[in-house]
């Protein structure tokens, strides 16, 4: 291991967002140090035994596990310094070009000085209290990721009669896992009028295994003295309020909360980083720099992604941003153009574009739509798409010359064809 003062990029998080950032940083000639809290590198895809990973990035349909080891092979090849079982507790921006980062490791407290930080610590799962489930605080309630770790890493079975709250891809995939391992999945409960995940998963996870999907439904109460015994469900209206008289109950011993992820960034929040309420993650420019100079973000800590391919790209982009920061002793002063959310757009990342280079923007829609065009009126750009769904990110490349057509803001909106 090199001296502690010898690094110029500190990468927080050893999942795909951090690994790809560290790899790119090393390839660009920088000196990254990666910090990971768990004992092993790899992050969440280590427990994702299903396929659908790396279709764009590696041009293969890999399992999350296979993708992780491709990344780890590259990481090892490049001989990048890292600590596992380590935790970043604090950092201070001593000056524009210098950050002091405190890390707890099994060898002692480290104080690392670095000009840039890439925050890629991922997301946390929404839990039962986040979605206001009331009633008994019985045993047998797990978040989907926890259940996945239990089954597909540690090899233990959470329960036998399952109710899954949330029909996003994670919930659907866990429904199939449980069904395959012999559990009885009583229902998947979804508050929206449509399933949250990809249709291919609805078919292969629910229809294939005869698992009922209850749309426009919410779990309102849990009942169970020691362990869960049943859930009370209710139809909900357009405002997600329970409709009186529509209550029902489902007996079960396990509740899986698959109600979505939130960027996990208490470290940045404690430094008053500007957060975008739509993403729950930091506001960034197209260098993926946050409102704190020299602090970049990538992956699910920046915005909840649907494909790990986007996470890998964001990691690389953040590394490039750090490179620019280091080489130029800071990012240039530019008139950033603000991305404006138009019709049916729920979020856009990055929120600001410099116009200094091509940019990739990631967006999500509010409601599903078919046969639409994605329009950027200020820069006269239009892209036709057959369908858009909230579960699927839209990725658009904006050329440098396109971006500079606008002076201030660039609106992104959807119109029917």
């Amino acid at each position, binding site marked *: 291991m090199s001296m502690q003062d010898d690094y110029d990029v500190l990468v927080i998080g050893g999942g795909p967002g951090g690994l790809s950032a560290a790899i790119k940083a090393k390839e660009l000639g920088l000196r990254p140090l990666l910090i990971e809290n768990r004992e092993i590198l790899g992050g969440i895809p280590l427990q994702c035994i299903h396929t659908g990973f790396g279709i764009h990035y590696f041009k293969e349909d890999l399992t999350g596990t296979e993708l992780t080891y491709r990344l780890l092979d590259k990481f090892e090849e490049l001989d990048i310094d890292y600590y596992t079982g380590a935790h970043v507790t604090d950092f201070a921006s001593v000056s524009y070009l210098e950050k002091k980062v405190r890390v707890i490791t099994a060898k002692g407290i480290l104080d690392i000085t670095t000009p840039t930080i890439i925050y890629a610590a991922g997301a946390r799962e929404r*839990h039962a209290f986040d979605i206001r489930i*009331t009633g008994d605080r019985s045993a047998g309630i797990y978040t989907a990721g926890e259940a996945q770790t239990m089954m597909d890493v540690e090899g233990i079975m959470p329960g036998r009669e399952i109710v899954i709250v949330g029909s996003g891809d994670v919930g659907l995939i866990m429904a199939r896992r449980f069904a395959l391992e*012999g559990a009885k999945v009583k229902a998947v409960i979804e508050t929206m009028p449509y399933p949250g995940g990809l249709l291919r998963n609805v078919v292969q996870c629910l229809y294939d295994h005869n698992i009922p999907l209850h749309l426009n439904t919410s779990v309102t109460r849990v009942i169970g003295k020691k362990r869960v015994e049943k859930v009370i469900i209710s139809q909900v209206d357009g405002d997600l309020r329970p409709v009186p008289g529509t209550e029902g109950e489902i007996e079960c011993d396990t509740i899986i909360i698959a109600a979505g992820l939130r960027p996990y960034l*208490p470290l940045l929040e404690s430094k008053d980083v500007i957060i975008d309420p739509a993403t729950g993650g930091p506001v960034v420019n197209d260098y993926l720099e946050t409102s704190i100079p020299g602090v970049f973000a990538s992956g699910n800590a920046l915005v909840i992604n649907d494909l790990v391919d986007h996470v890998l790209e964001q990691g690389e982009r953040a590394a490039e941003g750090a490179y620019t920061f280091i080489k130029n002793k800071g990012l240039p002063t530019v008139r950033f153009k603000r991305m404006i959310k138009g019709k049916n757009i729920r979020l856009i990342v990055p929120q600001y574009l410099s116009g200094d280079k091509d940019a990739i923007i990631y967006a999500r829609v509010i409601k599903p739509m078919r046969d639409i065009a994605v329009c950027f009126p200020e820069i006269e750009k239009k892209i036709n798409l057959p369908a858009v769904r909230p579960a699927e990110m839209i990725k658009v490349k904006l050329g440098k010359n396109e971006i500079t057509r606008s002076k201030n803001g660039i609106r992104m909106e959807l119109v029917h064809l």
Partner: protein
Amino acid sequence: MMKLKVIIVGAGVVGASVARVLSQYEKLEVHLLERKPDVGWGISKATTGIIHPGHEEDPEEYPLRAKLCVRGNYLWHRWVKELDIPIRWPGELMIALKEKDLKNVEYYWEIARKNGVPGVRLVDNEELLKLERNANPNVAGALWAPTAGIINPMKAVIAIIENAVENEVKLHTENCVSGIKIENWKIRGVETNRGFIEADLVINAAGLYSDHISRMAGIDYVIVRPRKGEYCVFDETAYPKVRRILHPTPTPITKGVYVTTTPEGNLLIGPTAQDLPEDAKEDTSTSKEGLDFLLKWAGKIIRELPSKSKVIRTYAGLRPEPPDGRWIIEAYDDPWGFINIAGVRSPGLASAPAIAHHIVESLIKGKFDVKLVKKKKWIPYRKDIVKFRHLPREKQNALIKGNPAYGNVVCMCRVVTEAEILEAIKRMKKIGIKTITLDGIKFRTFALTGLCQGSYCRIRIAKIIAKKLDIPLWSVTAKGKGTEYGIGNVKVLLRNIPS
């Protein structure tokens, strides 16, 4: 010389306090029986944690409550130092929302004088806002009682019991009393699910079930009804918080909804007050209405609450309400040797040390005329598990060099290390806990109580427990039998289906 055998039923804050005080005397064999797997899991777990000053206890209506609360508040000042219990002493503001509430507030000022509660005075809005920046500026005024504290009730119970056990008290968990043996109008012992235990004195500190225990001794007039209180807790990163303890003027039923910041730094709001049927002694379920009620009331006394999305947990506890609000603290001649500490609703936690001394002085020594001699060697001090997160850098570094497990942060949200979790397991075993539970770790280390509510760290903590106890991972329990983490290995259901 024969030892006097004393059984205390119930290891909540009252039972624990009695055990600690009794442990100061020689020639006593003190057994503390607790039916749950760990201590304090009845009422104590979900009290608000307020060490009340005593100015809300009318000495004419509730003389025992008044006397013991003021004395208890004073004793806690010493106990928290001796026992290294996390506490804040911010003082309390009773808010008069409207002009007409000021009369109410004056009534409590009078009580403060009668009860000898120090430093209580009425404050106007200007001073109110100096005392609490986040108070609602549009209220009529407040009563300021500077001796109020906010404690972590579970940390308190655990601390008291660790100290009592250090001083030879025996704790028996998962031990349920099913009968009391009386011969010739004297206590002989108790029947439990783990056999008969001889006793000369039986002290009933069984909380919600103190009426059941009392009936076993043939004393039928004790009735304890559960009154539910719901709470909500915000994440430590939620701002703005409050500096003081605030609540509106009390009603006859309840002291009202409190808004305060816990010693761990979480904004806490609660409780509600909902009377339940007598047999609903295990109903600690929460409700949407409860949360709405709490946020509504908090909004009346606070200027700004953090975003509702920062509420990370709602929970509920039960208070033991006696029919007229009066505590039943009595020693009986028939059967001789039986003491009731029943219906100890608010300010029970605040009074606990004083209740314990009262039991020993007035009842055991007084009424029962038992001669008690203080031990020559009694250990008053007890140190809590190291709170790694709050140590200065040099101390953290030194701890890690001595034990690398301090360098492994298991719970990221609360920065709790593997060493602290292992220490918690060690201490649970030391006091005689039979089943190491996740909740036991939670209450001792604050792991599992952060933003992620365990969705990241619970499995890691369960692995640590499983490894330490050499048991299968799936068999680790959240709170005792019937709450196992899993049902077996991942293939257990497929293996049981006939081919």
